[in-house]
């Protein structure tokens, strides 16, 4: 067995193999986060609406998504969509839509807890001023729910970023795929995967340090 040789790793390689993958991984994370929080918040509102014809479908959606492995959802969506829309959707677009829909289920549970963390008295106060249900939610409850849940939302986003590597299943070109391709080209797969792990570690660890700081800040603000 030969010793590790990292000499193949240089700026040229980053430009040629890694950069596009890195950009896609970040894009996928950001879009799925924004879309997931938006749809997740709507799902949470439906579940808390007190109307079973709204709450039950939302609950069914969330529970289904949370009970199925992500990689299966990625595969199924990729394989099924050509039948539905009549033409294949690229792996990248397929991944973006799948992740958004999948993460929405997780974000919705976080937002549901966040909404419930805002006291009933705040809703009373909003209503008493004459705000409608939606105004009370948008102006009073959701901003507080969002602030209370910010660390948890970010933690979920870190998990989301790690999970983006699962798009290898449909051959989308992400950060991991970039490392893999580079490794193959230089016949250095072990080193390539090792470097990949290091990059994921640095990004995730940095983000979780941010979360830790946020947590103390929010604790102080209360």
């Amino acid at each position: 067995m030969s010793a590790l040789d990292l000499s193949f790793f240089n700026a040229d390689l980053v430009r040629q193999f890694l950069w596009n993958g890195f950009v896609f991984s970040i894009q996928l994370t950001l879009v799925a986060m924004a879309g997931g929080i938006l749809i997740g918040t709507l799902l949470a509102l439906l579940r808390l609406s007190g109307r079973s014809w709204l709450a039950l479908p939302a609950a069914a959606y969330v529970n289904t998504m949370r009970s199925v492995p992500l990689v299966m959802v990625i595969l199924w969506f990729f394989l099924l969509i050509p039948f539905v829309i009549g033409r294949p959707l690229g792996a990248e677009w397929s991944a973006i839509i799948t992740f958004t829909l999948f993460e929405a289920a997780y974000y919705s549970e976080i937002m549901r807890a966040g909404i419930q963390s805002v006291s009933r008295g705040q809703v009373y106060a909003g209503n008493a001023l004459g705000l409608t249900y939606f105004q009370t939610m948008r102006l009073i409850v959701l901003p507080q729910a969002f602030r209370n849940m910010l660390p948890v939302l970010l933690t979920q986003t870190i998990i989301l970023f790690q999970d983006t590597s699962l798009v290898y299943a449909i051959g989308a070109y992400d950060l991991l795929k970039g490392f893999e391709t580079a490794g193959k080209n230089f016949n250095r797969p072990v080193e390539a995967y090792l470097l990949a792990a290091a990059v994921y570690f640095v990004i995730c660890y940095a983000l979780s340090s941010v979360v830790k700081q946020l947590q103390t800040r929010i604790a102080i603000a209360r």
Partner: protein
Amino acid sequence: MAMIEMKNLSKWYGSFQVLKDCSTRVDRGEVVVVCGPSGSGKSTLIKCVNALERFQQGEVIIDGISVGAPGTDLPRLRARVGMVFQHFELFPHLSIMENLTLGQIRVLGRGADEARDKGVKLLERVGLREQAEKFPGQLSGGQQQRVAIARALAMDPMCMLFDEPTSALDPEMINEVLDVMVELAQEGMTMMCVSHEMGFARKVANRVIFMDRGEIVEDALKEDFFGKPRSERAQQFLSKILHH
């Protein structure tokens, strides 16, 4: 003419009846204090007035509009009824000034400048002009409750509901809030106050309502209530809270 009228109001939580056939009225310019032991339904009763709590039987009429009727535009009606809560319920993510302007802008459709002017005037009135840019968490309980009163007044309400406004306050802060309320009463504001502050009741109330176990046991003019309460339960209650 009645500003607030309640007719045979009943409310249940599941099979437990919290309000039993409650009827009373608050006339224009009148100040009515509602007292009674904890768990007697006072807070629930006052929350039924602007339908923050739903009720199953009976009727509440504010300024001629039935609160429980299906066609009633509740947000619009509530906008004209000021309410102050036991735990202040200022919006913690908004500055004091934003707390005061939110309803004016979003509900009454006032412009930002007009709302702000009104906010400044009301903060001056409750003695908190300097605190406008702070956040609720930076104020004492008494200050927060005065802001809450100012927030309700910013909507130019036709009447005010107070739900135990001094119960969550440290003793030394109770008077600064009561002073504001007394002033308001003396200006002729119609007020319904759930409160144990009998000194406040003696000073400004027209009538006192005593509740126990979901029922209005006594509904009397202030002089009669403090002079010779008819019910034994009211006598017991008064002797407990007055003889300290």
